């Protein structure tokens, strides 16, 4: 971390990427890499547990939206391994900049699920304090969070802090100018960023083949750093690869692009109707790659999975879903005047006057 921004490393080529050697042609962690990574049974059980809980919360999100309690829900089914694996691979001191579908990342970062859900209930534009969780807000404007992560990472480098930054996005984001600009800035400034493409193969209705020419992972080479496509439904692969990429970033070796290939099992959001662009037959082959079933199989192989464990996780998931619902439904609606409080840290007098007029005009009783 001692090289200055002015003495940027030339990236004409990068040496053989040891992270790429961790996966086979299918993007799966090799047996050798798994041994070398030495991920304990407890860690793998925790990854399973978090995925199972998030899947249950995802179902509860759908339920709540169908019951009219949420304005919108963006299902994460199919993303559990990518989100949980990547978020848990980052050190506590690292930062994460999520996109709107990264609900499981927010849960992994310790945000109360019921509080996180208030965003979808229309109570807030941002449900948590980024500094408390080292987690940026959910960003809807597609791809625009990617250069924020790069800017933050440049700041970490300027502060000579060994911090890595993870940024999540879908493959649709990789079509935006901001994404490419951010990749180039990251390469030029050798910023400590791990780019995580959650390639679920659908940008609402547009399939990957009509969205991405070539492969997302290959884009990194053009920006002077390595990229790797991995099996994004295998949580152990995601965890191990992202952990290595974050270590690399923390050691001043620059950015890394991970393309986690997975599938969006549900609609884009509850406002979407996927029957207009795909069939159940399209989805079915991907169900065989389901992340939770595969984590279960890995744990069974290790002799680290039991019926008791499965039941305990299911019970915890149920309990968490009920608590989430209760927290969400008891969350207060903000006073309309509060919108004015949040605009500026140092609001001009004219805005305070406008606020007073606005509040005074509200029906008697609704103003504080």
């Amino acid at each position: 971390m001692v090289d200055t921004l002015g003495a940027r490393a030339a990236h004409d080529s990068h040496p053989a990427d040891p992270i790429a050697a961790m996966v086979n042609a299918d993007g799966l962690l090799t047996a050798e890499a798994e041994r070398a990574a030495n991920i304990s049974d407890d860690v793998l059980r925790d990854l399973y547990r978090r995925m199972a809980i998030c899947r249950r919360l995802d179902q509860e999100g759908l339920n709540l939206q169908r019951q009219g309690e949420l304005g919108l829900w963006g299902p994460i089914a199919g993303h559990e391994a990518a989100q949980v694996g990547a978020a848990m691979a980052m050190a506590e001191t690292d930062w994460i900049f999520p996109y709107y579908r990264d609900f499981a990342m927010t849960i992994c970062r310790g945000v109360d699920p019921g509080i996180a859900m208030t965003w979808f209930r229309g109570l807030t534009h941002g449900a948590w304090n980024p500094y408390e969780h080292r987690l940026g807000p959910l960003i809807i404007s597609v791809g625009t969070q990617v250069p924020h992560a790069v800017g933050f990472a440049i700041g970490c480098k300027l502060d000579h802090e060994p911090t890595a930054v993870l940024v999540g996005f879908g493959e649709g984001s990789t079509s935006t100018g901001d994404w490419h600009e951010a990749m180039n800035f990251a390469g030029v400034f050798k910023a400590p960023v791990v780019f995580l493409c959650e390639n679920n193969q659908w940008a609402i209705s547009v399939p990957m083949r009509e969205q991405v020419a070539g492969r997302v992972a290959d884009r990194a080479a053009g920006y002077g750093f390595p990229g790797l496509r991995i099996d994004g439904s295998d949580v152990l692969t995601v965890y191990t690869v992202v952990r290595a990429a974050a270590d690399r970033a923390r050691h001043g070796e620059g950015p890394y692009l991970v393309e986690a290939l997975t599938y969006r099992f549900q609609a884009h959001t509850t406002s979407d109707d996927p029957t207009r662009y795909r069939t159940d037959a399209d989805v079915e082959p991907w169900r065989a790659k389901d992340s939770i079933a595969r984590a279960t199989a890995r744990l069974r192989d290790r002799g680290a999975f039991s019926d008791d464990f499965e039941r305990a996780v299911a019970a915890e998931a149920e309990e968490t879903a009920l608590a989430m619902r209760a927290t969400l439904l008891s969350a207060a609606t903000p006073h309309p005047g509060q919108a004015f409080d949040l605009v500026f840290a140092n609001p001009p007098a004219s805005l305070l006057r406008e606020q007073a007029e606005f509040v005074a005009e509200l029906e008697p009783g609704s103003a504080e």
Partner: protein
Amino acid sequence: MTTITMGKALNEALRDALRDDPRVLVYGEDVGRLGGVFRVTDGLRAEFGEERVFDTPLAESTIAAIAVGLAIKGFHPVAEMQFDAFSYPAFNQITSNLAKYHTRTQGACNMQAVIRIPYGGNIGAVEHHSESPETYYVHTAGLKVVTPSTPADAYGLLRAAIADPDPVIFLEPKARYWSRQDLDLPAPPLPLDRAQIVRPGTDGTIIAYGPTVQVALAAAEAAEAEGASLEVVDLRSLSPLDLDTLSASVRKTKRAVVVHEAPVFMGIGAEIAARLMHDLFDVLAAPVERVGSATVPYPPARVEKLFLPDADRVLEAVDRTRQY
């Protein structure tokens, strides 16, 4: 006391801010070894090093976007857009993120960032180098928008903008970069929300900002020769608008002319006219007049002067208010 240009005053403001606040960063296209195409950042990289004053790739959207990330990290970035119309690629980052991040994070993340944009015409430039984009920015809640008209104001407003915890769009009237003034520096920062009466008068108020303040003053001088006393108000801040100062002036003079280089249609003058009409309906002796460009893309350099406000057009507008 030394005589310095507005460009140099801005340069001194950046230098003093870099010296006083270790979290200030200055970056953009060509701001490092070149010192900026207008030399506003001249010498800063040599003095403060490549970690605090640096060139970026040519990508305005990400120039604005990394200001968001750096501000979250606790830096106070000062980013330069090379020219007015080149800020448009950054528009989404500025309006969707920089302006909204404080709200989006429930006040947790201050966006203490300045986006400097040289703007305005009258320099004989090619397309995209002479525009007045202020209306785009003032229409976005969450941004403060200021513009100086003199070297002294340039210094004081830029120091205040950099020290303010909120994002500031700092519009620099490039035709005034070479204007000179005697200054004692360093000088205290100026408030970011106050207009300034730059010439007192009694028979009408000319409201101007940035590049048109000089035009307004020239018009007032010419009017004085003809026996009319015109007050000139320099807005300094376009968002918020200092309506108290404007209202007090027009309450006294009963007539107002707003002058800007931007097209009249939906310009700053429209908001000011509406406010004055609402607040001073019984006081105004004539409708508020507006002088600005036509609703056309910024014209080629050889004809730009036909579209830019000049003293004659301002005086014609003043006459309309006086003959109403």
